């Protein structure tokens, strides 16, 4: 009796571990793509936090249309403004979502849009300031129905 329970438990743990690694294997490729995309955007600059706020729902019922919004804290003058913000999704077939380009005439570095999410994943925003500094923010969005077709 006792040993049976052990076996079942063992099997359950093995399945769970396999599942975990299996998922990681799949996710890794896109996570690497995302990291490569961040590097291509940010270069070797150090990535800070704060200043940039990424807003996204905690749970998205429909991955076909997920509202997201970015706000960067900046005076938006000719000397100091936000040049661009890139949005990336780690778990999509292709991590690129959108790149916003701001100017001092924006007045405020705020942008909202609606995006597609294939599954539950991290959405990442990276902002580049006019002085070259980089900020990033990340949100995990749980997706009930994926939105990439197929």
């Amino acid at each position, binding site marked *: 009796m006792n040993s049976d329970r052990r076996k079942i438990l063992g099997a359950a743990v093995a399945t769970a571990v396999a599942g975990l690694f299996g998922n990681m294997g799949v996710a890794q490729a896109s996570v690497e793509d995302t990291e490569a995309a961040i590097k291509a955007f940010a270069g070797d600059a150090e990535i800070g936090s704060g200043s940039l706020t990424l807003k996204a729902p905690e749970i998205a019922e429909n991955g*076909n*249309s*997920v509202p997201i*919004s970015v706000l960067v804290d900046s005076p*938006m003058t000719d000397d100091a403004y936000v040049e661009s913000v890139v949005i990336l*999704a780690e778990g*999509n*077939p*292709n991590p*690129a*979502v*959108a*790149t*916003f*380009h*701001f*100017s*001092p*005439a*924006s*007045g*405020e*570095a*705020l*942008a*909202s*849009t*609606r*995006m*597609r*999410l294939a599954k539950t994943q991290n959405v990442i925003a990276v902002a580049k300031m006019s002085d070259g500094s980089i900020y990033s923010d990340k949100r995990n969005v749980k997706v009930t129905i994926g*939105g*990439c*077709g*197929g």
Partner: protein
Amino acid sequence: MSKPRVKVPKKAAAGDVITLKTLISHTMESGQRKDKDGAVIPRKIINKFVCEFNGNIVFSCDLDPAIAANPYFEFKAKVNESGTFKFMWTDDDGSVIESEKAIEVA
């Protein structure tokens, strides 16, 4: 052809930061989907959005297939004088859809 909808305040005070909203109907075919025969439906999206005020670019966006159908944007602009906002959406096929809206700045 897709008909865009834009929302710009009619009036503003000089130096105001105003909110602009745009929506355009477009399927934004991602190139990931397959039809019932298993053939990939070719990608066809709007890949660029630009907003100009009196000829100067205020805000622009490079779009990827992960943007939802009927692309929606909300963003800000600082207005110091009366003028016209021009919005341009570029399709993968090279066509550009344009819309204009005037604003009176006191």
